[in-house]
């Protein structure tokens, strides 16, 4: 009797246990967005991942997705935002699990890495020739790898020096009219000192030190090129390498200058990200995405200037987010349809109105109030067109390259020995290029 009671209790437990397990697995399935099967009125959506950048940019993309879905496509899109910091790590982890979306936004220089992994599908057949011919050369160059087009961005980027005209006038600075007239770095440093005299805390320049991440590579690698150095260059055997370039005297000199500005207290730590907008500093190293905020703060007093010339001419960065279609996407044509929508000139203009980036199509540039003739940001377009913009290295090993440079720049920021930091970075990069199994990729495009 007791035996049966015990067994009944045991059975009850077992049922409860199974129910619990089932509930948990159901919850687990809840956590994942499970796609509905098959095409039809509720066709499986096209999954889209994008980076969570400036708020205006995010909202613009959300609006675009809504507009596209409202136009009744065969498959709607479902948009997810991933945090910008660690974006690549997130994508890597998802790739490992086979979890990638259909349409994936990537930071331009990382494209080569994912092509090498075999994760991306070429876009050549999915975009009409007329569209491709209308794209800016820099956009095409960024998206091409191994001779095929794998990614297209709806905008390219601009990097420059924002300034306050009134403060610069007081300091007696002559403002350069174009990238060819950029201040030589010695004159720039003298200007910093003059500005500091009138400034309560002596910090007159914002370098975005608090941003870390890809910003360091994007913003400061051009200074290396401007001094005659760089990140990577082909060695005697034709393969890319960092030794002699990244840790060469020109690169070291450039970063030592920047370190000098920080050490003398000319650079604002900018913990609240409002140094320029709130008027604490007169100059800010910034990108196109800063324009809306700075414009709102300073109106006509805002000027956009080229970065200082470290010896070989002013150089700036280029490259931005690109859209790619993944190899695992079951409906690439539907993904490409959304991409073609995003690449319509009016959609490009909608996005660049929100983030002030350089429109990716010539037809859009012409119509842009910011970049068209007489537009306030045409410096960015000029830099891209005039060969002053230096792309980041196009190699499948880019994730390691940028991580090494970021670590070196952090050391520079913190006052450590520049030559040693760059040497360590160059060694780490070269070792990776040799051992990573990149083969021909190590030779670049």
């Amino acid at each position, binding site marked *: *009797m*007791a*035996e049966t*009671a*015990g*067994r009944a*209790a*045991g059975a009850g*437990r077992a049922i409860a*246990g199974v129910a*619990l397990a089932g509930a*948990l*697995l159901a*919850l*687990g*399935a*809840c*956590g*994942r*967005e499970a796609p509905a099967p098959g095409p039809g009125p509720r066709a499986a959506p096209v999954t889209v991942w994008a980076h*969570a*950048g*400036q*708020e205006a940019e995010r909202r613009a993309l959300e609006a675009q997705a809504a507009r596209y879905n409202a136009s009744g496509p065969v498959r709607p899109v479902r948009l*997810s*935002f*991933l*945090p*910008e*910091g660690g974006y690549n790590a*997130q994508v890597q*982890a*998802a790739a*490992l*699990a*086979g*979890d990638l979306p259909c349409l994936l936004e990537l930071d331009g220089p990382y494209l080569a890495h994912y092509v090498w992994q075999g994760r991306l599908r070429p876009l050549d057949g999915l975009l009409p020739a007329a569209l491709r011919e209308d794209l800016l050369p820099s956009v095409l160059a960024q998206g091409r790898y191994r001779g095929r087009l794998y990614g297209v961005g709806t905008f390219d980027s601009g990097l420059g020096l924002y300034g306050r005209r009134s403060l610069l006038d007081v300091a007696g600075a002559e403002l350069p009219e174009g990238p060819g007239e950029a201040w030589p770095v010695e004159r720039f440093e003298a200007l910093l000192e003059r500005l500091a005299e009138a400034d309560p805390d002596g910090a007159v320049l914002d370098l975005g030190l608090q941003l870390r991440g890809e910003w360091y590579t994007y913003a400061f690698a051009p200074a290396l090129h401007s001094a005659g150095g760089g990140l990577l260059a082909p060695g005697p055997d034709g393969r890319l390498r960092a030794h002699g370039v990244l840790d060469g005297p020109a690169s070291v000199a450039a970063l030592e200058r920047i370190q000098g500005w920080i050490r003398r207290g000319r650079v604002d730590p900018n*913990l*609240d*990200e*409002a140094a320029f907008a*709130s008027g604490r500093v007169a100059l800010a190293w910034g990108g196109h995405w800063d324009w809306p*905020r700075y414009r709102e703060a300073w109106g006509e007093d805002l000027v956009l200037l080229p970065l200082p010339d470290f010896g070989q001419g002013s150089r700036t960065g280029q490259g931005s987010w690109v859209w790619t279609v993944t190899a695992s996407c079951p409906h690439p044509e539907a993904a490409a349809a959304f991409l073609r929508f995003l690449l319509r000139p009016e959609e490009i203009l909608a996005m660049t109105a929100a983030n002030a980036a350089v429109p990716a199509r010539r037809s859009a540039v012409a119509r842009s109030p910011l970049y068209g003739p007489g537009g306030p940001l045409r410096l960015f377009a000029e830099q891209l067109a005039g060969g002053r913009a230096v792309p980041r290295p196009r190699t499948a090993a880019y994730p390691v390259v940028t991580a090494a440079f970021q670590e070196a720049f952090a050391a520079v920021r913190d006052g450590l020995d520049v030559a040693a930091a760059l040497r360590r970075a160059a060694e780490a990069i070269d070792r990776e290029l040799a051992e990573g199994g990149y083969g021909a990729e190590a030779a670049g495009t």
Partner: protein
Amino acid sequence: MRRRAPLAGALLWAFALVYLAPVAFMVVGSLKPDALVLREAGSLAAFWPEGASLQNFRDVLRRVDFPRYLLNSLIVTGATVALGLVVNGLAGYALARLRWRGRRAALALVLALLVIPFEAIAVPLFYLVSLLGWRDTYTVQVLPFVANAFAVYLFYSFFLDLPRELEEAARVDGAGVLRTFWSVVLPNARPVLATVAVTTFLFQWGSFLWPLLVTTSEAVRPLPVALAVFQTLPPRQWGDILAFGVMMVAPVVLLYLLFQPAFLRGARLAGPKG
């Protein structure tokens, strides 16, 4: 030493004031306009809610899906605690009280695994769950932590020390193993249940490294990861960030104040016996 000692009390209260100043800073800062948070941090104005409003809290709710993160943390933590109590409790009991072949081997395994800290296996575990396709779910945040060597050990030691008379009486009356456990042992196991529940809860609620590695989407993102992401989301507004912190810790503090004896007992019991 039970004499009254007002001096010690006064000193301790003075210390507590300084010690808890960061908490006050966070709460007051969450009520201030963003621009003032850093600017006033260096003075006593940091503790004075000039211009106090709930604007930052509204901003957080507008900028991110905070209720979702809270729900995720509750689901993940709740499931881990509930399942953990069952799985580890039953195992601890079986190891302590029942006689079966392989018991010694099982006990040895549990004791051996006690020394493996989670961080040592985080990376390969990540690889494993990625291959299994479990990424970005609740399951992946819960399942690896349900079976816990430390919890089994706590239950095991506790049940070992429990006097046997009640169980023996029940067995004589003809109750089976599970019935004995349910009606006789469990009611006396409150201290260890509280300890394990509290320690598991605190661990899971604050878990950061693991969910950072295995979650991507906001749908399953728990609070600590959400805070770290929010802290880097442009524009970085510290008033909002502190408000996020307040909202994130408020439920736990509430639970703590309500169930304080359990928390403190749990901490005591987790220590060595006498």
